[in-house]
């Protein structure tokens, strides 16, 4: 999968690119409008991460250009603006998603995956991790080819874990992904634990392995290592 990252802040650009490379994406970088424009004109990408505020132009104009040329790339806007208006403008112009800074890399990964699945759901609608298969179209989970019944939150949580396998995810990051921003006002994140335990129990009931490891009681890691 080829990703073009358009972001004028080099530090952020490099960190995102390093992370996505580790996640087996091929990353190309553009730190200004001109470069991004050239790359978009010449090459094809599966995903374009687009910062709106660029030193020499507006990301929205790039978005319009991409849509005008009918390029197939999925577009995720990275913006410092959190207001609904900007979001709606971006999505109306044909962006697939809109992520507000600051964001978690694991969250970005989840969103990229969702956009990829949306654009290429022919055959790629199953996310698999060993004996666990998540069908993202029917929203069902199979363990050892047997379906387990999960709630929407449990489904979202497991998919998030699998997409971010081998990564340490803090409770805050999980809560933010599953619920909206208000959740970070919680005094504790015990309610995550409840959902987690349900998933563990359901997977084990079909003979699956518990891949969810607790890290110092502050985070979790989905891993078979």
């Amino acid at each position, binding site marked *: 999968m080829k990703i073009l990252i358009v972001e004028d802040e080099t530090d952020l650009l490099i960190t995102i690119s390093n992370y996505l490379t580790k996640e087996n994406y091929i990353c190309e970088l553009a730190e200004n409008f001109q470069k991004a424009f050239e790359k978009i004109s010449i090459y094809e990408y599966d995903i374009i991460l687009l910062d709106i505020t660029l030193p020499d132009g507006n990301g929205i104009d790039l978005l319009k250009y991409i849509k005008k040329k009918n390029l197939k790339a999925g577009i995720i806007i990275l913006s410092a603006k959190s207001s609904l208006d900007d979001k709606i403008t971006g999505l109306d112009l044909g962006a697939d998603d809109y992520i507000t*800074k600051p964001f978690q890399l694991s969250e970005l990964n989840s969103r990229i995956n969702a956009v990829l699945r949306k654009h290429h759901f022919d055959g790629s609608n199953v996310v698999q991790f060993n004996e666990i298969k998540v069908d993202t179209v029917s929203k069902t989970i199979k363990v050892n080819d047997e379906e387990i019944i999960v709630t929407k939150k449990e489904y979202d949580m497991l998919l998030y874990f699998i997409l971010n396998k081998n990564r340490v995810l803090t409770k805050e990051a999980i809560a933010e992904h599953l619920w909206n921003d*208000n959740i970070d006002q919680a*005094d504790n994140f*015990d*309610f995550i634990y409840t959902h987690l335990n349900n998933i563990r129990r359901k997977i084990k009931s079909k003979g699956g392995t518990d891949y969810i490891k607790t890290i110092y009681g502050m985070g979790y890691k989905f891993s078979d290592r």
Partner: protein
Amino acid sequence: MKFISIINRNYLITISVLLIILSIAAFFTLKRTLTEEAKEELLENKKSIINEIESRNNLPNLYPTIETVVISKSEVVEKSIKKVMIKDVLDDGEEEPFLEYKSIESINGNYYAITLRKSLIEYEELLLAITIPLLLLLLLTFILSFLITRRLNKKVWNDFEHNLAVLRQFSFRNSEEIKLKNTNIQEFDEINKSITDLTKKLLVDYQALKKFSENASHEIQTPISIISVNLEEMLQHNIPEQTFQLIVNTQQTLKRLSDLNKNLLLLTKIENRQFSSDEEIDISSYIESKIEEFTPLIKSKNLKVEVTNDGVFQVKMSSELVDILLNNLLSNAVKHNSISGNIYIEISKSELKICNSGASNKLTNEAIFNRFTKENSQSYGLGLAIVKQICNTHNIAIQYRKSDFHCFVLSRCSGL
């Protein structure tokens, strides 16, 4: 006091004083003139009497107007002219004012005392006959001129009042230049020009400032993103628990910083009325889904939520703001609640009431909505300030009531 009233009042006072002084002056001047006239007439009469005595040696006597007496030389009669009161024998015997002239004349070697009198009654009548119409005329002139001035004033100030209304309605938020009516009065037009220039300049400054704070807020999010992303990557390494703890703490603090920044930006945007609000929204329909969203928090504190629906509470507000409003109120009700506490939500046509149990605080109705009023360091005290600001800009009154429960009551401002 209105400019016109001051002018009118001064005008009236001045005119009244002037009228009184003028009438008194007119009265005395006239009186003096008439008395002079009477004196001259008496002197004329004296000449005729002297002539009469000289030529015909006839002493005319006609009481009370003419008295002529022969006197000896030694007799002293004062020469005088004065006003006297004399009983009129012809009339009903009442005393009447006369101007009396006494003189001694020597004619053909004899001395005569001549006393001439003239009745002043007709003069006084004449005086009144002149003074009263004159006064009335003056009064009429003043009243007319007062009315005309007032009408004129109204016309002149009309444009001014219009411009004043425009000024009152002027808001930087509309970012429209002020348009004042041309009054064709030099002074007013000069003020208009000054105001127009001033507001133009202020508008530019205001927009620059707004842009700056908005940009600053946005720009802060980028370095925060870098820190956040780097912290996340640090967690992926094999690190001891203490370091892990420190990084998680730093992440939480960073999140607070970012939220604070976002909320300040939001507050400014609400203040600037940058949210369009043409749709009527039924708050009750939002409450259910909001409670749903908060379920994990509500469950984690083992809270009991009761919603009473007695009507439809409608607000004219953008859905984004409704979301923020309910979010902040509910999160407040959850955050400051005691374990196994209660949340009561009462919705009626005129009111939305959100109450929660919880430890008592010292905050008053005013203080609780202030920015950065907080009970613990975990919050930054902007949530309720945002709620208040949203209410203020949407004609909703909000009140904090404290009894057994902490209640926030939203009600629509009437007549607006």
